[in-house]
């Protein structure tokens, strides 16, 4: 099983194609961008690992909501909800939209699709099952014929 997770958290790819003349600032920026990307990827899963944040996603997936409206659904403070929203926004699972004086939070399904790709262990589990079934089917055929 551990193997699966190595597949899903691959070591950061080093970009070998540096088309531009190699200057220090450029390389530094690339490294920072790569680290940021890797971190963001990890954060998406950390974000949805929290039940409150999952509940928030569930609510705003139905309709965009303000932090105040969201806070009414939870026993936590408005501040705590805002913190959850900030984490969700940082990893782009939700986006903000200013309407008048209010900020509405929207669900970003594209980002969730990225999360869904994490379903690979699930596919492997079925594949393992089916390869056993392939063998079972062979025995059914032989015993029948």
């Amino acid at each position: 099983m551990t193997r699966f997770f190595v597949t899903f958290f691959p070591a950061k790819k080093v970009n070998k194609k540096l088309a531009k003349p190699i200057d220090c600032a450029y390389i530094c920026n690339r490294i920072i961008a790569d680290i940021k990307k890797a971190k963001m990827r990890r954060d998406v899963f950390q974000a949805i690992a929290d039940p409150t944040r999952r509940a928030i996603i569930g609510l705003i997936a139905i309709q965009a909501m303000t932090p105040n409206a969201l806070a009414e659904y939870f026993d936590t403070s408005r501040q705590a909800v805002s913190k959850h929203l900030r984490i969700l926004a940082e990893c782009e699972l939700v986006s903000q939209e200013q309407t008048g004086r209010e900020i509405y939070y929207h669900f970003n399904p594209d980002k969730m699709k990225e999360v869904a790709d994490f379903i690979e262990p699930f596919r492997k589990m079925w594949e393992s099952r089916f390869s056993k079934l392939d063998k079972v089917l062979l025995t059914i055929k032989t015993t029948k014929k």
Partner: protein
Amino acid sequence: MSSQGKTQVSRNLEEKTILVVRTFNAPLASVWRAYTESELLDQWWGPEPWRAETKYMNFAEGGHWLYAMVGPDGTTQWARMNYKKIVPQRLIEGEDAFCDENGMMNTTFPVNQWINKFNENSGSTTVEHKLIFETLEGLQTIVDMGFEQGFSTGLDQLEALLAMQTV
């Protein structure tokens, strides 16, 4: 025939479903038996390194299959599959759940609905498994478990959970 032997998994977040499609190089009659007879199910239902062990089987509408997933270290996880609708060699509809060894359902884990459709095409058989989750959260449970457990020691348990979470 080209897709034979490949498991295709797609998800539909709007419908909150996961579709697992697989084609087997066997006639429909054999595949149907493998899905509906407990002696055959025991031989393949447990993904490696798990194996399924049937305690009770009543393959009929309103009936259920009570089985244990047994791990290599002897860990046992009970589960049951409730059969709701059966159209012979066409479709099976039902739900699965965790339970104790007497089949008492454990409601702390989500119950998954599923629909399996069988189709024969020139000697090979395609089975579509549609897993339906009540909530987006339910669908994410699989993902979350993969993430949370991936870094902890409960990997065996994860495999059991993943196994039970599905059809």
